[in-house]
């Protein structure tokens, strides 16, 4: 009975490994963020290795690998983001804000700055409602 469970676990690991291999190759040539996608796919392979180790009865190795695998993936992704990705794709550093013009509460930053500037059209129209005071001479 245990043999069957082990065999099933190993076959599951083999299938997951093949799936991750196909995934690694199937990414298109012009795919954006290819390295991150491949790191993601390698996560599947890591889980396949852990399942295989459990199937082989190596629980300590499976535990060690289960803890270490995310650190590896994160270290590689972090290194790629900090150097290669930023230096090769400078447009990643500019953030584009998409704000709906008709939104009742959220307004674009440029629009608000234009409203707050001294020579804005809004302030000129507000001059129509300037407050006048009546001067009173006490002598009269």
């Amino acid at each position, binding site marked *: 009975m245990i043999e069957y469970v082990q065999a099933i676990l*190993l076959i599951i690991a083999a299938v997951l*490994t093949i799936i991750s291999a196909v995934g*690694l190759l199937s990414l298109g040539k012009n795919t954006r963020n290819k390295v991150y996608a491949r*790191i993601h796919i390698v996560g599947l392979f890591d889980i396949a290795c852990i399942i295989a180790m459990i199937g082989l009865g190596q629980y300590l*190795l499976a535990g060690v690998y289960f803890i270490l695998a995310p650190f590896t993936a994160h270290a590689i992704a*972090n290194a790629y983001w900090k150097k290669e990705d930023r230096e090769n794709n400078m447009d990643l550093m500019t953030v584009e804000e998409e704000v709906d013009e008709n939104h009742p509460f959220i307004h674009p930053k440029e629009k608000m700055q234009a409203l707050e500037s001294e020579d804005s059209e809004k302030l000129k129209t507000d001059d129509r409602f300037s407050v006048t005071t009546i001067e009173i001479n006490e002598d009269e």
Partner: protein
Amino acid sequence: MDILFIAKILLVIALIIMMLVTLRASAYKSTSMGLLGSSVIVNAFAVALLIIGELHNLQFYRDISLALIFFGFVGTVAFAVVLGGNDE
């Protein structure tokens, strides 16, 4: 034939395919991709070593596999830290 034996052979074949695919993927222009590829190959080899060690009753295969996984991790992280550089 024993089903467990067949499953082990299947897994070894899948791991060999994975290693070849990773070699192909490592040829991508980025250095990080080579780092990722080497990490995957080391881990795949460690698992294959576990299976082959059980099949042929080899000794110390478990220790070698543990060393491969652990030092593969250390090397990958060290290289990644050097590749990433200092924070600005």
